């Protein structure tokens, strides 16, 4: 080139560069950058085509293709390292290809485009790779170093511009995000007072009004019964009556739209329906508004509104943030509502628990008291405020039947917490009051579960049994006294009947004799019953005395059997005592009680034996510690089923074969109790139709 040509060329280049820098600095966004930029590039570089790829993630996305088949825009993004562009991007080194036909790595489209030469340069700014820029010629061209420098200069400019635009976009986005975060933060802070619905709502509306530069905010909630959205208090920037008079049908106005469409809606021109609603509520001077539904778990609770007296106060871009904030508000509103419901339920439960007479208390997993009803206060003398949060074992000590404290680890509540199995006890426990006195209780304790089925605590319901026990004692006393009082009359009757039967009161006709005999027998049975009842009564009240002393069982047996010989003879039965072959040790027992059991068993044996014999045997156990007295008969025997219940109170055998002479069902129970009180045991072996052996053992006097 001549020097003038060179100067002119240089001027042109400068001009172009100037143009490019103008384009670059003025481009507001990337889209308005590419086209003019490339036009300039094609001109200044005197090439036929160009393309620009921008790095997005790990791939190069084609943004512009000038002078090329538009098809090329449909091609998939090029990964780093692949093809010419990918390699340049990866290596960050420009590449010049003079003869494309020889290049195998070029894309198909490029080859089809009939392009011959190219330069590809990386687009870098501030050390950051932004993409790749390529220019192409149809004719073969030997690109010079100066071409490369020129293109690089241009691409540097372009890169800087891209960076500037991107940065500014980022800044704007950041600013928005900061605003959002700030708003969320403010609302979150107010969540700490979550349990106060009014406070939370007011704060939320206030924050939102501020962010969106509006003066009024109102929450409406759906009334399920009337299907209306009704304004709730508190409202922001509105009087109470304005808020409460704001009522909207779910199909009408902007509120209705937001409600059933489930999206936020803004209106910079208020529609007539909404105007009506605002008029009804006496809300004037609303030029623009925004409304969003409050949704929680696919249920729409209501609609939140912001009103502004400025026109066009709200922009589309505000909808996103407004939506986010409204969903936050929804969670808050829902939680508050649920909490009020729970509080209401809790109140109801408390009222219920207060009204029942039983004491009810609950503990958490750490055994701290979380609830105590008013009955507990009355029964123990504690105030619920004093004991809340305390370890329950310190405040409500449990005592055993001897009024000794039960260790916390041993308490039924602890077991319930571990096993989850409900425990009920009606006797043997006392509860200590605040003043250290105690009273008998009956209680039930059960585990408390959370929604996931885990044990989170336990609950106890108990009642004061003092009155009950007093009544029980009085009952027993009464029975004792009454039966005692029956003895004298019965004995009296026996005496008189005897006098009649003996003929002492005059001659007794045969019929009278028979009848009076029956009465005599009835009276005898009565005497036995009263005797049994008195024994039972004494045993239950712990009033039966046992004067334990060494006694000779054989002697006792001999003496007792003598008194039964007459009875045995009458029934034609043999009654014998198998005397022990060698002397047996003495037993430790109360002689009267020993006799009582012996008499009962021998009497039974004779009663239930029709023919044969009754034999009494003494047997020493192998260890020599217990001496057993055995009464065997050849009577009717006892079925297996009956044997199981034989020693229970009031159990009588229902057997058609046995003649029920008497039989209160108490005799054997009494024998069992007596044997046990003397540290012995009683048992039966029997075979129906063969006979029975009743035996009771008592401890031998230790040497």
């Amino acid at each position: 080139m001549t020097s003038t040509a060179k100067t002119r060329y240089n001027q042109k280049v400068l001009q172009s560069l100037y143009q490019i820098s103008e384009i670059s600095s003025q481009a507001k966004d990337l889209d308005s950058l590419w086209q003019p930029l490339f036009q300039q590039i094609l001109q200044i570089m005197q090439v036929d085509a160009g393309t620009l790829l921008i790095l997005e993630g790990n791939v190069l996305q084609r943004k512009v293709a000038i002078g090329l088949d538009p098809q090329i825009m449909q091609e998939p993004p090029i990964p780093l390292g692949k093809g010419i562009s990918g390699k340049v991007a990866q290596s960050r080194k420009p590449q010049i290809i003079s003869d494309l036909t020889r290049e195998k790595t070029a894309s198909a489209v490029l080859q089809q485009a009939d392009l011959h030469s190219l330069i590809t340069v990386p687009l870098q700014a501030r050390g950051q790779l932004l993409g790749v820029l390529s220019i192409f010629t149809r004719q073969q061209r030997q690109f010079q170093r100066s071409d490369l420098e020129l293109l690089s200069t241009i691409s540097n400019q372009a890169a800087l511009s891209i960076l500037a635009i991107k940065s500014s976009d980022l800044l704007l986005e950041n600013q928005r995000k900061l605003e959002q975060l700030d708003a969320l933060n403010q609302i979150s802070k107010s969540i700490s007072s979550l349990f106060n619905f009014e406070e939370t709502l007011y704060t939320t509306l206030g924050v939102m009004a501020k962010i969106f530069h509006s003066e009024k905010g109102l929450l409406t909630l759906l009334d399920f019964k009337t299907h209306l959205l009704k304004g709730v208090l508190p409202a922001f920037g509105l009087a109470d009556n304005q808020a409460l008079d704001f009522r909207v049908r779910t199909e009408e106005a902007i509120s209705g739209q937001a409600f059933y469409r489930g999206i936020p809606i803004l209106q910079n021109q208020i529609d007539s329906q909404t105007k009506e609603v605002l008029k009804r509520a006496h809300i004037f001077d609303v030029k623009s508004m925004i409304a969003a539904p409050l949704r929680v778990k696919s249920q729409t609770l209501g609609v939140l509104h912001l009103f502004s007296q400025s026109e066009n106060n709200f922009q589309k871009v505000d909808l996103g943030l407004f939506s986010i904030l409204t969903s936050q508000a929804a969670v808050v509103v829902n939680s508050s509502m649920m909490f009020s419901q729970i509080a209401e339920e809790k109140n109801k439960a408390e009222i219920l628990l207060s009204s029942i007479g039983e004491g009810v208390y609950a503990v958490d997993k750490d055994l701290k008291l979380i609830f105590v009803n008013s009955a507990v206060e009355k029964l123990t003398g504690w105030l619920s405020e004093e004991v809340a949060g305390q370890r329950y074992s310190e405040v409500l000590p449990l005592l055993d039947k001897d009024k000794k404290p039960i260790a916390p680890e041993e308490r039924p509540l602890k077991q319930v917490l571990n096993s989850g199995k409900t425990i009920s006890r009606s006797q043997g426990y006392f509860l200590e009051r605040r003043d250290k006195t105690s009273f008998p209780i009956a209680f039930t304790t059960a585990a408390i579960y959370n929604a996931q089925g885990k044990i989170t605590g336990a609950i106890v319901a108990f009642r004061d049994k003092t009155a009950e026990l007093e009544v029980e004692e009085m009952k027993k006393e009464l029975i004792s006294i009454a039966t005692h009082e029956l003895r004298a009359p019965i004995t009296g009757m026996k005496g008189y009947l005897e006098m009649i039967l003996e003929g002492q009161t005059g001659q007794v006709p045969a019929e009278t004799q028979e009848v009076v005999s029956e009465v005599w027998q009835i009276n005898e049975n009565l005497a036995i019953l009263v005797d049994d009842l008195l024994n039972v009564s004494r045993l239950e009240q712990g009033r039966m005395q046992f004067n334990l002393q060494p006694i000779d069982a054989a002697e006792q047996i001999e003496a007792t059997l003598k008194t039964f010989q007459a009875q045995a003879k009458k029934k034609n039965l043999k009654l014998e005592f198998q005397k022990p072959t060698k002397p047996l040790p003495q037993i430790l027992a109360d002689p009267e009680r020993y006799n009582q059991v012996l008499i009962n068993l021998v009497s039974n044996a004779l009663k239930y034996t029709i023919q044969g014999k009754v034999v009494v045997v003494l047997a020493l156990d192998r260890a020599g510690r217990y001496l057993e007295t055995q009464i065997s008969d050849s009577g009717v025997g006892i079925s297996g089923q009956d044997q199981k219940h034989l020693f229970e109170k009031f159990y009588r055998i229902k057997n058609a074969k046995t003649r029920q002479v008497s039989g209160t069902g108490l005799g054997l129970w009494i024998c069992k109790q007596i044997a046990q009180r003397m540290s012995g045991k009683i048992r039966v072996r029997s075979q129906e139709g063969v006979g029975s052996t009743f035996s009771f053992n008592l401890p031998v006097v230790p040497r």
Partner: protein
Amino acid sequence: MPAVPPQNRGKILIVEDDQVLARMYQKKFELDGYQVEIAFSGTEGLDKAKSGQPNLVILDIMLPQMDGFEFLRHFRANPNTKDTPVVILTNLGTSKALLDEAQKFKVGAYFVKYQISAKEIARKVEEILQTLG
């Protein structure tokens, strides 16, 4: 064939606070031919013993105010009655302690009220009085 009771076989004092029993025993012994007096307390018993001079006393242990043993102390202390035979009726059972106590006062027989019939008491009474002659 009803037995004809011999007339006036002696005088018996019954010290028993239960009216039903006292009257029944009284009837029995009267049918048996004895003269019978009843006292419902220890004090009354001592008075009636002094004035009536019974041949035998049937004594209940459980008496109001003065119990049977205290009665016996006074009874035996009195030279007039220190040898009068006594038959004890009790509902307290036959523990050794009680029997020993009774022995101290030279009691002729010891019966548990509700385990014995009036017939048996009468038989014993007859036995005792006969041995005395």
